[in-house]
């Protein structure tokens, strides 16, 4: 019989994890895919924050001499037909994508949580009314809904965020409502009532925290979808207006005319979109596992 290495087993279980550095390492070990996703997301966040520092050229400045230049020494990812540096534009595009993604997800979740919690907790005619409105909203696909919103609000950064957040509301409200319906019947809610808590306090203090885990999973999935929707809207010309560098708009400008002659104009923005969506999805899965209190030790 082989001897058991107790210290190695303990290390595997995370017994000697102290401080944030070793905690991070431990978590990265346990959720390698999540760590990979986190690295991608962090890279994009850094790119967005330090976009001005890490790019040599202004993303909107044109240079006819560089028009349609292939990737190389002078332009890392090439240049578009106006001679704008693609590397600068892709990096600055991270700003737009993340701002729209985070902004619309946060806004959509906030409104969705309020509606879902109120609907599932109050029930009665309020619930009935809200659910029918949500049914109507869900009958339209996310992109169509966002299109309608964007077209009626007009193209600007703020309006794009609002346009994308509105189709997210029904999804969030549904999930929160169904969780609320289950949680409001649990014994600890009755125990809280026996402690003299008001219904509003019970909803916020006891029900809401229990719906957060599914909300975060949903939010991270929606984050990817929101970034994708922004790209689609901009691709269709309804999203972020010129001259802001948006990945979706970069694709739409180049796809039709230059995909054969200058494929780098399509490849790099497309790669950026795919990577950031992939990263947020991986991170979201790991966050879900991590947030389950039953798995905390």
């Amino acid at each position, binding site marked *: 019989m082989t001897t058991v290495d107790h210290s190695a087993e303990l290390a595997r279980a995370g017994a000697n994890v102290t401080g944030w550095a070793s905690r991070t390492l431990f978590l990265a070990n346990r959720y390698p895919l999540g760590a990979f996703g986190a690295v991608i997301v962090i890279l994009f966040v850094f790119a967005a924050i330090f976009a001005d520092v890490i790019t040599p050229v202004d993303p909107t400045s044109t240079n006819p001499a560089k028009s349609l230049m292939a990737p190389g020494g002078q332009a890392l990812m090439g240049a578009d037909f106006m001679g704008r540096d693609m590397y600068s534009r892709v990096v600055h595009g991270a700003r737009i994508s993340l701002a729209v993604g985070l902004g619309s997800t946060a806004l959509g979740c906030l409104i969705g949580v309020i509606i879902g919690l109120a609907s599932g907790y109050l029930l009665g005619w309020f619930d009935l009314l809200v659910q029918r409105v949500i049914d109507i909203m869900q009958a339209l696909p996310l992109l169509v809904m966002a299109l309608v919103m964007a077209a009626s609000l007009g193209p600007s950064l703020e309006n794009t965020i609002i346009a994308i957040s509105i189709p997210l509301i029904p999804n969030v409200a549904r999930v929160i409502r169904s969780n609320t319906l289950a949680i409001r019947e*649990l*014994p*600890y809610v*009755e*125990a*809280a*009532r*026996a*402690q*003299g*808590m*008001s219904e509003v*306090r019970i909803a916020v*203090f*006891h029900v809401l*925290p*229990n719906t*957060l*885990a599914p909300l975060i999973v949903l939010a991270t999935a929606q984050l990817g979808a929101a970034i994708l929707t922004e790209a689609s809207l901009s691709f269709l010309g309804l999203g972020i207006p010129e001259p802001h560098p948006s990945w979706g708009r970069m694709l739409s400008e180049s796809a039709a005319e230059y995909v054969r002659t200058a494929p780098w104009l399509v490849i790099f923005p497309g790669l950026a979109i795919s990577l950031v969506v992939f990263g947020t999805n991986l991170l979201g899965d790991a966050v879900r596992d991590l947030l389950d*209190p*039953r798995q*905390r030790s």
Partner: protein
Amino acid sequence: MSPMTAQIAEKVEAAPRRRSIGEVVLTVDDLQTVFYTRAGMVRAVDRVSFALKAGETLAIVGESGCGKSITALSLLRLIPDPPGRIVGGKVVLEGTDLLSLSEPAMRKVRGNRVSMIFQEPMTSLNPVLTVGRQISQALMMHQGMSKAAAMERAVEMLRLVKVPEPAQRVKEYPHQLSGGMRQRVMIAMALSCNPRVLIADEPTTALDVTIQAQILDLILELQNQLGTAVILITHDLGVVAETAQRVIVMYAGRKVEEATVEELFARPLHPYTRGLMASIPRLGLMRNQTVETGRLQEIPGMVPPLFDLPAGCAYAPRCALADDRCRAEYPPFEEKRDAHWAACWHAGE
């Protein structure tokens, strides 16, 4: 006295009698709670009255569905409406009628002056909040304590209910505690505001037998320290014998017998109470009393559906003593012996 009641009487003797019993804190008068269902109106609690003194333990016993839990919930006005409603009676706590209070005023009573321990310690705590936060929320709400002061008191309460390493435990989540520990946390929560009345709804039913005795001892010890009046709801007559001073036996929503523990176990008057006592399993019975065919006694039949009660005594269909009068006329709840009431035409026969 039969051998089995003699065994219970031993337990009664062993129960602590030293506590000081004070003045009346809670009076329940003619309480009536009904449920409106598709099958008809259910009188879940039908004209139940009792008084409770400070430091006293009152046990309410009966089968499942006899209305004991609904009585407890009615005291706190936690009956879900619809389908239920308290339609009559008074619940007077130290001079105030709880049934006439506004809902916000009632919230100040719950968990503060009257609190409750539930049967299920595994699900009565919120899984995503730390134990400390859950204990301190009542303190912050009712006593206006700051977060830090409430947390400090939570540690103190956990020490009081004998949770080891309370300073560590307050930071833990319910799933990290065992069933017995969770019930201790529930007790700490219930007692944190030093209530006048503690309602314990089958506090030990979901626990291991070894833990049950510890939890009961703890409740009694704290009751002694704090002078709280306890309403103990149970179906376990052994628990009643060990803990209570007075007992109410309920059947089909009504009180059928009330007496001190000693009196009830020595001279049960209602045939239903006697049936309950006879159906307690006893080791001695299996060895010696082959006279009774060696089988455990049971009460024949079931509790009648509450929306379709017979005109007379609700127990008559299951009662060996029942006659035409029992089936036609409900017996009055009368004092049959000194401080011993029963509702039966054949009490003591």
